[in-house]
């Protein structure tokens, strides 16, 4: 048994490396075909994020919210619910946090208290909106995917409405809130980069998620409910409560992600389209195989890829649409669960065969 687990673990790492190698191979091949200066393009895509402090900062600017949305979607994904509410609450809590920050700005609240208050607002917004699809699913058996996707659009338009009617700023021509007051913003750890103090919030959230998952009864219940609902029911776990709690906590973390992102990177709230950060959080959760310990790795990988693509876009002539396609190829290969699956089974089979021989 122990043997199997060891093989599985080693194999997982091997699999990700192979998938990455193939995906990058395809990507690089494509760059070679379409670019006039393929070496520059390849260099920017692969090494670009590490060529200056600011670019590394841009990577962290993505990494920080990914930690939070990744941890959030881990809760949802581990409970085997396909609830996509993270996408909408990310935006909604960004909007409400910006609103509260603008309203309370200049009231003389100390920086730390102000930020903590805003983070609480973000998490509560997430929990509040996230509870709707969770309750509908567990109490009335309404498909959570449909509800959450519809709610994402509803929240987008609600946020847009709030910006338009409640945060009007006549010194700009596009739709955005008034500037977020300086004392509400998360300070940059390295000046002029996007590496801000939100990273501590992210790390704490991941650590707490890992503790809940592997050191508490609740985490055990969530994992069992997700992995084997019949067994969970037979062992007397309160499934309804557990699953609602898991989805609400996931949404709260996603809301926290939106709050941290708005306070860390943006001057104003200006999301008038879905941000994709919630869906990216799901990718992080998939990459880390529902294991919160791996979230920093998955988040870093995705942030690295997104940043490389962005730098590729603004330093070379490769069109942005193509950059998006390349990212999709990479994510597809890494996320494919059964990629090389046969090989893993063979390894496990051989190992157990040998063990049987030894025993005999």
């Amino acid at each position, binding site marked *: 048994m122990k043997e199997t687990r060891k093989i599985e673990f080693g194999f997982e790492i091997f699999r990700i490396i192979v998938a990455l190698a193939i995906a990058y191979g395809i990507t690089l091949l494509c760059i070679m075909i379409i670019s006039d200066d393929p070496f520059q393009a390849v260099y920017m895509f692969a090494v670009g994020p590490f060529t200056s402090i600011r670019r590394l900062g*841009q990577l962290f600017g*993505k990494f920080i919210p990914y930690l939070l949305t990744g941890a959030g979607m881990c809760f949802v994904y581990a409970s085997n619910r396909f609830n996509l509410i993270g996408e909408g609450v990310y935006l909604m809590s960004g909007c409400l946090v910006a609103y509260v920050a603008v309203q309370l700005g200049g009231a003389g609240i100390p920086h730390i208290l102000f930020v903590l208050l805003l983070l609480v607002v973000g998490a509560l917004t997430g929990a509040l909106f996230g509870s709707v699809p969770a309750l509908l699913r567990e109490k009335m058996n309404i498909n959570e995917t449909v509800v959450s996707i519809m709610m994402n659009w509803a929240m987008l338009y609600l946020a847009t409405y709030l910006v338009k*009617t409640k945060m009007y700023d006549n010194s*700009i021509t*596009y739709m955005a809130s008034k500037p977020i007051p300086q004392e509400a913003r998360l300070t940059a750890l390295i000046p002029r980069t996007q590496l801000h103090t939100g990273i501590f919030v992210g790390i704490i959230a991941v650590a707490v998620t890992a503790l809940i998952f592997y050191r508490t009864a609740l985490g055990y219940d969530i994992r069992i409910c997700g992995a084997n609902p019949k067994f969970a029911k037979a062992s007397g776990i309160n499934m309804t409560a557990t699953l609602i709690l898991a989805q609400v906590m996931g949404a709260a973390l996603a809301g926290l992600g939106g709050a941290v992102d708005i306070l860390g990177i943006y001057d104003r709230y*200006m*999301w008038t389209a879905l941000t*994709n950060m919630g869906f990216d959080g799901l990718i992080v959760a998939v990459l880390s195989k529902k294991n919160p310990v791996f979230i920093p790795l998955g988040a870093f990988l995705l942030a690295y890829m997104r940043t490389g693509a*962005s730098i590729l*876009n603004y330093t070379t002539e490769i069109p942005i649409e193509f950059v998006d396609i390349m990212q999709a190829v990479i994510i597809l290969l890494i996320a494919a669960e059964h990629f090389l699956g046969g090989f893993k089974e063979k390894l496990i089979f051989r190992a157990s065969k040998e063990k049987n021989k030894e025993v005999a």
Partner: protein
Amino acid sequence: MKKLLAILLTLAMAASLAACGGSGGGDKPASGGASSGAAAQQGASGTADGDARSIIYLCMNLGDLSFNDLGWEGSQNAAEKYGWSADVIELGKDTSTYENAFVDALDSGKYDLVVTQSNYGLSDLCIKYAPEYPEIDFISFDMSATADISGIDNLFGIAFKQNEGSFLAGALAGKLTKTNKIGAFVFNDVPVGNDFVTGYVAGVREANPDAEVSIAYGGGTADASKLQEVSSAMFDSGVDVIYGISGSAYPGLAKEATGRGGIDSGLWCIGVDSDMWTVYKASENADYADVIVTSMKKNVADSIVYTIDRMVEGSLPFGKVEPYGITEGGVGLADNEYYRSKTPADVLEYMDSLQKDVVDGKVKVPSYFDFEDYDAFVEWRDQ
């Protein structure tokens, strides 16, 4: 075997995508190339002050046939005129990366003149970074005239008085209508869109206080079929003049009006951004042109060239957002032969004198940016 096949298929798919991407890449106005070629030729006859500059134009995405493209056209035209080089960076949809791309371009040392729109925080970035890069000049267009950038002596803002041009469009609509019902379609419920509406509604009230204006909003996407649906409903309800404030969705309106007999049946359309009658006449949709009596031009490209002209002359007042109205050629009705031939003589006379009054400041055109808040605007619009 199956797996090998799958991998081969993936590769084939990727390769075909690459091919598509390749041709797409070809369309993208590549940096320098053409313009710097022209540069070499024109350098000799060049400018009074000789030294070549290098423009970087930042926008969300090219290919909208409207705002983004016009800014790039203006930057290229100016570069060609003075023998400079011009580059473009398309920032894409992810606004969190804008600041890095912006600062990266400034730090690259390749550019000494930044041209941007104001959208998605780009004007904020100009305000934030201009003081740190005194050797670079910044021009941000479509800013709000109420923005305060005084003291930043390497940033110039262009505000378009779309309300002024739309005021004339509204007055024309008020004079042309027989049913006293007038319509407008706006691409999205955003401040700039509502500035168009403010001018238009005020124009209608000025010329024809009895007329009633109905306004429909789009969702911000280039959706021609939606505009066609909206205009169909408006025409059905008796509206006979429609102002389509959406360049990319405009074919929907033109198609519907053409199908109903156009101007000969008493249905008029007013175009936006460019001189649409001329543009459509030259396109494959030439038969759509005849419903467009005139257009409210928002001359982004010409205004950028005009601004750079003033910069070269040394007369550009940096540290200021300047409204470009009818006088500056920033906005205005397209005064083409079709407009002159189709509009009744007394209306033409009225329009000419009204335009003069607006230019002279005798008639004050309200602006969306003057309203206290959104609710105040809605109340005024619907009164």
